[in-house]
């Protein structure tokens, strides 16, 4: 048995097999990704949505933490200007998928979020696969599936979490304009096993997450303790 003490100055969780596939619980993925998003400068509320989205994607067989890291490191920060049938970035550059996903969720039952008629076009979304968790939530609320098409492919999202279609193509999209429409036919969705994480990705997310923490000091360390000896 080893009783080699860990390094007490070590910061945060370590993933010794960096590079290899690592199995994290969904709770860990959500928590790490929310902290990383906050560390990257996203608001606390949107950071919670980022954690939700990454955890959901892993549970549905897609490597959401890698996609989120790509997004956080490229930093598409545009929020949408919402209009009936058409959303576009408020500034130059693509839309932040977390802000856009959260806004799709907020506008789910409002006219600007309506998918009927010619559908809802959302222009230039960065890392668009990150929208799927939000669309799944909307599908539950609306009681019907949502068909999402993009240049070269299409996927279907259902409320119970089923997803089907050109998922690999969607994951590969750096930035894409999406068209969303209601979908009544049930997707023939095979069961998808949860996706593992990549060690190097986790290490980089962890570095971002550490941006939410405060470096230690003697005062900080001492003030949080018991003030009495533990060898009593």
């Amino acid at each position, binding site marked *: *048995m080893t009783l080699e003490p860990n*390094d007490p100055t070590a910061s945060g969780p370590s993933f010794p097999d960096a590079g290899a596939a690592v199995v994290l619980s969904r*709770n860990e993925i*959500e928590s790490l990704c929310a902290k990383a998003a906050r560390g990257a400068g996203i608001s606390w*509320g949107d950071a919670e949505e980022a954690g939700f989205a990454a955890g959901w994607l892993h549970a549905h067989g897609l490597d959401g933490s890698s996609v989120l890291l790509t997004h956080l490191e490229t930093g598409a920060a545009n929020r949408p200007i919402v209009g009936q049938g058409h959303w576009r970035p408020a500034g130059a550059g693509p839309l932040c998928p977390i802000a856009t996903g959260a806004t799709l969720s907020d506008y*789910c039952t409002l006219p600007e979020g309506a998918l009927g008629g010619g559908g809802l076009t959302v222009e230039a979304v960065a890392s668009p696969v990150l929208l799927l968790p939000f669309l799944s939530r909307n599908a539950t609320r609306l009681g019907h599936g949502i068909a999402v098409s993009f240049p070269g492919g299409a996927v279907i999202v259902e409320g119970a979490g089923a997803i089907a279609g050109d998922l690999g193509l969607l994951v590969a999209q750096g930035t894409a304009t999406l068209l969303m429409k209601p979908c009544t036919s049930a997707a023939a969705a095979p069961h998808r096993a949860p996706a593992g994480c990549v060690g190097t990705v986790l290490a980089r997310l962890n570095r971002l997450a550490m941006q939410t923490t405060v470096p230690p000091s003697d005062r900080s360390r001492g003030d949080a303790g*018991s003030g*009495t000896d533990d060898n*009593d």
Partner: protein
Amino acid sequence: MTDTTASQLEAPAIGLRPPETVMRLARMGSAHPTRLSFLRVLLRRMRDEGWRFDRPVWEIDGKGVGRAVYRAVGPVRTYSLVAFAHDLPDAMRSDRVIATAWDATFALFDGTPTAADLDRLQANVPLQEAGRISARELSLSRANRSVRLWAHVVESLAAGRQPDPAEIDAVGYLMRTTAVYGSGKFGAADRRDIAERPELQGPFQAEMLSVWLTRQFTVDIVEHLAAAKGGDQAARLAPEIKRRLGVGNSTGLGMAPFLVRHPLLLNNWMAMREAALARVRALTGVGAQAIERLRHAYAQACENAESWHSDHPIQIAKLRDLRDDLARIGARLQSFPGDAAHPWDALWRWGEETLTLEGQEMLFALLIEPHGDLVDDLAAGMSAEEDPAHPINGAMSVASFRAILAQRYAWALAIDFDRPENAARFWYVSEEKLEPRLGERATEAGAEREQPLCTARLVAELHAALAGWPDQRPLAAFLLAHPEHRYMARRVQIAADHPYAEVQDNLIAADMLPIDLMRCKLAFFGASHFDPRSDKWVRISLFQGAPYPLDMQGGAAQ
């Protein structure tokens, strides 16, 4: 999935106490364990379902180093506590989360572990946060010895004597846990994957089971060491002494933010507790059995108060209040039930007028204790299936949202945050093992990385940002323009349907006591002998006076 809220309960004749009474830190910091506490819920289930317990592995050497397995075998599933015992130098013994080695380390395993499972756990569990466990594990924990009592008990038993009861009562446990991690931490099973199991549906049931089995381990290993030292003349712990030993727990600020981070859960815990009180107060009669149980609970409460020691000035004053109040309650019980139409309600109202918060909260526990048939089902409503990002209803109008905010957060809007004492502190997470800490804003670095636990100030800022927004606009439009308020807006919508979701005090005030948050949570666990070591650090005892697993086979205490 259970998400019973106060509004969904049958309305009792006597209403629930309002959140502005219940959700104050001073009252939460006076909480006592009740029959709805999580360890009581666990013990009732194990008894009623006839769970059986054994110890299939005991590979501990004469120095107390090795491994052991304790099994809890239920009607459907088996859980095993895997324990690793270490030889820890005194210099490394620390209860802080920044410790790196412990006297004993544990994992709760889902099923019966094979030798390969034990080897895998042995390579990871002793490292705690630096190791990895898997979805086959439900919790990860560690414990340190009470050095003085440990030595006294081992020496006494080795010499064939029983330990001194006064020494036992002065500490109350042989080992104290310093962290018990569950719910997907460090690779453990996610709550959502096991929450459907009836035995794990309630809050912290896996953690409570782990601690209860740990209590068995602490007495087994101390007897083992005494036998190794004393040979044939060594004694075993007398049952009456063994029963007085619980498992300690030592905890700092790591526990304090939990109640703030889990508003749905906090609401459900509090709402069920309040529902229990309302049901009892609504009773019109008092049966002979209820009186007998009340008197028995009162006697136990007095005994508990007498054996409860603390050197901390805050707790010394609170213990004085409690003992004085228990004397008043004793006198009042002489004339109970009397001729009031609602005798329990009359007793409660008397307490509200007469007793300190310590005494009122003790009276609360006493009132519901005789009424298991009436209140125990409420335990099923105490869990909450939480979403990492609770969906926001963006279609809600700004007017409706403002109305909820004004109603649920009037207490927060009354605070003047321009006064330095009202924003004197900030919650942060340290780089060191991600330990939550509390800093002084005026003199400490790091406030720019403040955690969003300052609910009152966040809601005041949200309220100010809403000024000027037309009533009919949807909340979605406001949040699109103000993502910085999304976090608090979500809480406000949760609070709309969950009146007990928020602690109604300023959590960054200069005079805020973190130990109040901790005592509330620990009382829900079932902790007794709350003993602060500072305003941010506390020791408690769990399972003191309860039966041991190996003595409670098939539901009967032996």
